[in-house]
C-alpha cells in the first residue's frame, strides 16, 4: 500500500482505492463478462418463481428421459386436478384455497389456547390447504414470498411454461427448471457458508494479528492444530449426529434443517484460511503510519480494529470470498455424490450433477442430464474464479506497472 502514503484520513484512501479498482475492472472486458454472468445467475436464481418455468417437482412419468425439445406440450403447463379432471392452475384456484384456509383459520379461535395438540393440527391443516394448489402443480413447499412471486408469474405469463429445452429426467421432470431451482439452493448454501467463514475468520484473524505477541502465538497455534483435522470427517460425523431423529426434531423446532447445519458446519471449517490471510494482512497494516497516528490520538483498540484495520483488509477478503464460494459449491457436489447432500424434493446443482454421473455409460448416455447441470456449475464457477482474479489484479497496486 506504499502508493497511498501515510494519511490520517482513512476513509478517503479506501474510497480512492475502490473507485480506482472499479475503473480498472470495467476496463477488463473479461471481468465485465464475468460480472454479467454472475448477475444473471444470481438474479435468475432469485427470481426463479417469477419465470415461466415448469415446476421442478412435477413428474410426468410417461415422458421420462425425453431429450431436449423446442416443442411445447400441454403437460408442460401448470396444471392441477379437480374432480379427476386436469385444469390449468389459475389465480382463481389459488384464491379458492386461500379462502378455504381462512375458514380453517377461524376454527383456531374456538380452540382453547392450552390445547397444543389440536392447535398444532389445525395450524398444519391451514398450511396444507394453502400450499395445496402449488404442490399439486408440482412445486415444492414454498415460503410466502416465493408464493407471491408465483402468483405474479401467473398474472404475467398465465399457466404457460417454457417447453423442456433441456430435456427431462428419469421421473420425467423438467431439467431446465431443476437447474434453476437447484441454483437457489447451491448459491444460498455457498454464500451463507462463505459468509459464516468470513465473520469468524475476519474477527479471529484481525484480533490475533492486531494484538500480536503471545495472544497471536496461541491463537495461530490453535489454527495450526485445527488445520490438521480432516474436515470431511468432521462434516460427515456432524451431519450424522445432528441428523439423528430426536436431535433433528428438536432442531427442526427452531427451524434448523439439514441445509442450515450444512452451511454452518462448512462455514465453521473454511474460516481457518481466512483467519490466516487476514492476520498476515493486519500484521503488516498495523505498522503503517496512519494506524500509529490513530493510536496517538487516543483511539481505543476495538475502534482501531473496526475503523482502520478491517476496511483495509477488505480487498484481500473479497478476493478470497470469490475463491471460496466455488470451493463450497464443489464440496456440496461432493457431499451429494456421497448421498449426504440436500434431500428430495429439494434440489441442488451437486445433486443434479451426481445424478448425471449415473447416466454416463457406454451403452446409452442421456447426455442432457449431465451436460446442463455441468454447464450451470461450470459457468458460474468459471465466472467466479475469473472475476476473483480480475478483482485481485485490480486491487493490487503492485500490478499496476506490470505489462
Amino acid at each position, binding site marked *: 500500500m506504499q502508493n497511498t502514503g501515510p494519511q490520517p484520513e482513512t476513509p478517503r484512501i479506501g474510497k480512492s482505492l475502490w473507485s480506482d479498482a472499479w475503473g480498472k475492472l470495467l476496463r477488463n472486458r473479461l471481468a465485465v463478462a464475468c460480472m454479467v454472468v454472475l448477475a444473471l445467475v444470481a438474479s435468475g436464481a432469485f427470481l426463479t418463481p417469477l419465470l415461466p418455468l415448469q415446476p421442478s417437482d412435477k413428474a410426468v412419468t410417461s415422458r421420462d428421459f425425453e431429450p431436449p425439445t423446442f416443442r411445447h406440450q400441454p403437460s408442460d403447463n401448470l396444471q392441477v386436478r379437480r374432480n379427476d379432471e386436469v385444469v390449468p392452475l389459475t389465480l382463481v384456484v389459488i384464491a379458492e384455497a386461500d379462502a378455504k384456509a381462512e375458514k380453517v383459520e377461524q376454527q383456531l379461535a374456538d380452540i382453547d389456547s392450552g390445547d397444543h395438540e389440536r392447535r398444532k393440527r389445525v395450524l398444519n391443516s391451514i398450511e396444507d390447504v394453502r400450499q395445496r394448489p402449488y404442490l399439486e402443480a408440482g412445486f415444492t413447499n414454498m415460503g410466502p414470498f416465493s408464493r407471491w412471486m408465483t402468483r405474479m408469474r401467473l398474472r404475467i405469463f398465465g399457466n404457460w411454461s417454457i417447453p423442456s429445452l433441456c430435456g427431462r429426467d428419469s421421473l420425467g421432470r423438467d431439467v431446465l427448471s431443476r437447474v434453476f431451482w437447484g441454483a437457489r439452493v447451491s448459491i444460498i448454501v455457498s454464500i451463507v457458508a462463505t459468509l459464516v467463514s468470513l465473520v469468524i475468520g475476519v474477527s479471529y484473524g484481525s484480533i490475533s494479528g492486531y494484538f500480536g505477541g503471545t495472544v497471536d502465538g496461541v491463537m495461530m497455534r490453535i489454527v495450526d492444530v485445527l*488445520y490438521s*483435522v480432516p474436515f470431511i470427517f468432521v462434516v460427515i460425523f456432524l451431519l450424522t449426529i445432528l441428523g439423528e431423529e430426536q436431535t433433528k426434531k428438536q432442531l427442526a423446532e427452531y427451524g434448523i434443517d439439514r441445509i442450515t447445519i450444512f452451511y454452518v458446519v462448512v462455514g465453521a471449517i473454511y474460516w481457518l484460511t481466512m483467519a490466516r490471510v487476514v492476520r498476515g494482512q493486519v500484521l503488516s497494516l498495523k505498522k503503517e503510519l496512519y494506524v500509529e497516528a490513530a493510536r496517538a490520538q487516543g483511539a481505543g483498540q476495538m475502534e482501531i480494529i473496526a475503523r482502520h484495520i478491517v476496511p483495509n483488509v477488505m480487498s484481500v477478503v473479497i478476493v478470497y470470498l470469490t475463491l471460496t464460494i466455488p470451493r463450497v459449491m464443489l464440496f456440496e457436489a461432493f457431499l451429494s455424490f456421497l448421498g449426504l447432500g440436500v434431500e428430495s424434493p429439494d434440489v441442488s446443482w451437486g445433486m443434479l450433477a451426481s445424478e448425471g454421473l449415473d447416466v*454416463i455409460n457406454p451403452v446409452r448416455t442421456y447426455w442432457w442430464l449431465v451436460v446442463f447441470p455441468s454447464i450451470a456449475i461450470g459457468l458460474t464457477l468459471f465466472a467466479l474464479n475469473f472475476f476473483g482474479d480480475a478483482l485481485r489484479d485490480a486491487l493490487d497496486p503492485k500490478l499496476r506497472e506490470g505489462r
Partner: protein
Amino acid sequence: MIAYFAKRFVWLLITVWVVFTVTWILANNSPGNPFTSEKSFPPEIEANLRRRYNLDKPPLVRYTLDLGNLVRGDMGVSTKQVDFTVNELISLCWPVSAALGLAALAWAAVVGLVAGVVSASRRGTLADLSLMSLATVGIALPNFVIAGFAILLFSFLIPLLPPAGWGSPRYLLLPAFCLGAPYAAYIARIARTGMLDVLSQDYIRTARAKGLSRLAVIMKHALPTAVIPVVSFLGPAVAGIITGSLVIEKVFAIPGIGYSFVQSAIDNDTPMAMGIVVLYTILLFTMNTLVDAAYTWLDPRVSWEDVS
C-alpha cells in the same frame, strides 16, 4: 535446524492428540453401532459384542483405553473387514493411493508450472487466456463429471485404456489424469500469479536491463521466487492427494485408502476411522513442516528462526 525439527515434532504430538480426541468424541457420539447388520442380535449376544468392543464401559475409560492403544501403535481391528487389522489395511491400501497420488501430482506439477509460467510471461495474449480458461474448467467442474467423460472418451470412443481396476501401469493413467486435473489447474493459476508478482519486481527489470534474455531471466531469477506460493499450496495438497480421493477411487474401482477415508466415517467403523485420521494428520503436519523448511531454501531472505 535441529531445534526447529525437534520443536515441530512436539507440536506434531500435540496435534495428533487433539485430532484424535476431537474425532474420538465425534465418532463415539454418532448414531448407530459398529455391528449393526440386517440380521439383528438377541440382547444377550448384543451385550457380548458390547463387551468385546468395550462399549459397556464409561466413555472416559474407553477413551483412555483407546489412547493407550494409539500410543502402542495398535489401532485394533476394522469392524467392517474383520479379517484385517487397521494397521494391515492401511499398509495394504495406502501405498496404492500414494502411488496414484504421486503420479497425479507429478503430471499436475509439471503441466501446471509450465502453463502458469507461459501464461504469465505472455500475459494478456490469446495463449494466456486459453491456458487460464482451460485451467479454470479444471477447477470449475466436479471431479466425478470429468472422470465420467474421460472414461467414455479414452476407454470406449478411443479404446486405449482400461476403464477401471488396478494391477498394471495402464490402469494408473486415467485415474491419475482425473485426480491431477484440478491440481494442475490450481498450480497453473498460482504459478501465474506468483510469476506476475515477481516479474514486476525491480531486480527482474534490472536483470532484463543488463541484457539477459527473457528465458534466462524467467528460469534463473523469477522462477525460484515465483514457485514459493506453489510450494505452500503443494504441502497440504500432497497430504490430501496421497491419502487418496474417494471419488476417483470409487469411479475407477481402485483399492486405495481414499474410499475408507470417508466410508469408515459413514459406516461407523470407528477403529478404521481413527487409524486413517491419525495417518492423515501425521502426513499433513509433516508436509506443512517440509513446506516451511523449503522456504529457507527457496527464499534467501527467510532463515530457520523465521519459520519457527
